[in-house]
């Protein structure tokens, strides 16, 4: 349907139709109610904390100085709402204000205190003289701790742009990232030189602003489509995946026809395209669903085992023949994508994020379980055919929050994004091989092995670190 813009300033009003008006008002009222949510319990105090911090930064910025916040080894240079990462040894601009962490035992904020627990590290302020450098006591990011001499991890390079997800293209030539800004960035995997950027479409955003011929041409590249698909697993930001000819794309709840610019809303969310581009998998709290990618018609509801709180996630295997669905409060299940028959149920600890190994023989999950008084994170590997748990490892340092786990092609190497860094395990024995401290002291979110298993890319809010692997 085409809707012409109303460009007459609303001078005339269509004839009054009480029946239609009543029906429309009733539908609109229900549609509005469906979107309304009560205010979060601590919402106002969170706003107040953010507001006070923003006021403080604004005050400093108004003096013409930049603000450097040192948090656990990362330095964020903030000026005019832009942040730049600096590392030990970098020269700091004149009149730069450095905010350094207070000792943890003080537990006090220099900003006004609130009744809720502070979510930011405590900071205090000092001013460095012109031309001074970042204190040498700040640990250098990327120092690898190797606990097994059979493996060598060599820093290869850093991409200094935010990346919530990272993946290699199928041929290993391109590294693709997606950031919270919903921009895909493509890099030459050999040089880490940026090749292109592509905006992700937002649901409901006007298509002409987002899709042009160039974007469609990019979308048709099979390697990019494959890489974008493999970035899935989170709805934050919603990944985009394309069919093979680039005429369809999915993002969140949206199925886009990139040729005529129309969009169909799919019930559920976290939509991912099958590798052959014929079906779309969405997931919600209630179920996972398969849709016809060309028509948007519902094919089947999979995995209706209800979780209580959390939405499910789902992924296709690289050959498209299997689907894994999962939720933190429900068992992960593997399905045949053609017969829609359940192949296996994965028993074990709570799984937050489950993915197939690139060869499709196994699935690996980031897990969480209660050990003594703590909730401890780890990872599990299952046989994708039988559902048998082959390996379960627990984070050595008791991390409770973990990001995505990834494996090399055959699952012999497992990398887990932990709170303090990326942990590397032997996928057969479960022995710890190495630990890469979190880049710049920030969380790590996604890992990706190159198709040949010779490189490891680790993404976080400050960028991507790439390591060469020799084993």
């Amino acid at each position, binding site marked *: 349907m085409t809707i012409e813009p109303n460009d007459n300033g609303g001078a005339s009003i269509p004839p009054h139709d009480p029946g*239609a008006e009543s029906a429309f008002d009733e539908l609109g009222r229900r549609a509005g109610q*469906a*979107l309304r949510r009560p205010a979060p319990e601590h919402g106002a105090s969170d706003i107040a904390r953010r507001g006070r911090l923003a006021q403080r930064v604004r005050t400093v910025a108004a003096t013409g100085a930049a603000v450097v916040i040192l948090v656990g080894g990362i330095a964020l240079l903030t000026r005019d709402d832009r942040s730049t990462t600096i590392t030990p040894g970098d020269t700091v601009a004149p009149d730069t204000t450095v905010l350094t962490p207070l000792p943890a035992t003080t537990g006090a904020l220099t900003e006004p205190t609130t009744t809720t627990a502070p*979510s930011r590290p405590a900071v205090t302020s000092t001013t460095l003289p012109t031309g001074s450098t970042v204190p040498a006591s700040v640990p250098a990011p990327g120092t690898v701790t190797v606990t097994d001499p059979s493996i060598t991890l060599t820093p290869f390079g850093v991409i200094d742009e935010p990346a919530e997800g990272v993946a290699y293209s199928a041929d290993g030539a391109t590294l693709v990232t997606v950031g919270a800004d919903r921009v895909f960035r493509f890099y030459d995997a050999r040089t880490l030189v940026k090749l292109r950027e592509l905006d992700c479409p937002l*649901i409901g955003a006007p298509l002409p602003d987002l899709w042009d011929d160039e974007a469609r041409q990019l979308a048709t590249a099979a390697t990019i489509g494959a890489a974008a698909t493999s970035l899935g697993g989170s709805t934050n930001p919603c990944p985009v995946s394309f069919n093979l000819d680039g005429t369809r794309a999915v993002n969140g709840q949206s199925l886009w026809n990139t040729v005529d610019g129309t969009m169909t809303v799919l019930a559920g969310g976290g939509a991912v395209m099958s590798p052959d581009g014929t079906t779309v998998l969405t997931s919600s709290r209630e179920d996972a669903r398969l849709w016809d990618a060309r028509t948007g018609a519902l094919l089947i509801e999979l995995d209706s085992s209800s979780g209580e709180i*959390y939405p499910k996630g789902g992924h296709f295997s690289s050959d498209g023949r299997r689907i894994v669905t999962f*939720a933190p409060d429900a068992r992960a299940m593997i399905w045949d994508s053609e017969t829609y028959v359940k192949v296996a149920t994965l028993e074990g600890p709570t799984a937050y994020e489950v993915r197939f190994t690139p060869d499709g023989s196994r699935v690996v999950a980031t897990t969480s379980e209660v050990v003594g008084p703590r909730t401890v994170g780890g990872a599990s590997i299952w046989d994708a055919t039988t559902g048998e748990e082959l390996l379960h490892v627990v984070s050595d340092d008791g991390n409770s929050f973990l990001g995505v786990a990834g494996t090399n092609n055959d699952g012999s190497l497992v990398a887990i994004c932990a709170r303090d860094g990326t942990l590397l395990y032997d996928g057969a024995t479960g022995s710890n091989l190495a630990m890469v401290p979190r880049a710049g002291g920030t969380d790590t979110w996604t890992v990706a092995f190159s198709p040949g298993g010779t490189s490891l890319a680790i993404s976080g809010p400050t960028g991507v670190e790439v390591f060469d692997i020799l084993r």
Partner: protein
Amino acid sequence: MGIELMMTESVPSTPPFDDVYRREYPGLVAVATALTGDRRDGEDAVQDAMVKAFIRWDRVGRLDLPGAWCHRVLLNACRSRWRRRRTEQRFRSRVGTEERWVDGPSADVIAFWQLVRLLPARPRTVVTLHFAGERTMAEIAEILDVPLGTVRSDIARARIVILAGLGGGL
């Protein structure tokens, strides 16, 4: 016309920020969700708008309609592609520890918002403010700085287009 000029500062005392926040949040998050198409984006946009309101509360709080000011700021936030999120909130949402999920809307509600998103910008915003934000037509006229007749016209035209799009299925 600037937003500060739009409303008279006739209320001598400033109401508590918390009260206005709780009262306005349901409508704000509904509007932002409708316009961005994503509840998490909507919540982020509301956060950004309310932070701005908090910072200027000594002035915003004295306005006749502080909620209308918040909606105006929210509309600008929804137009922005950038959504700043706190690191911990983003990380926790990734592993599902803070995900709040509600029952999905019915098919006609989904279709309603899908059709609303196909409207031109101003009617889309008008309909969203009216039904999601539960704003009166007069308030919408103030928020968007357009004549009241334009708001009425936009809603009437949107009704025809949306009902036609639904195929008389009501």
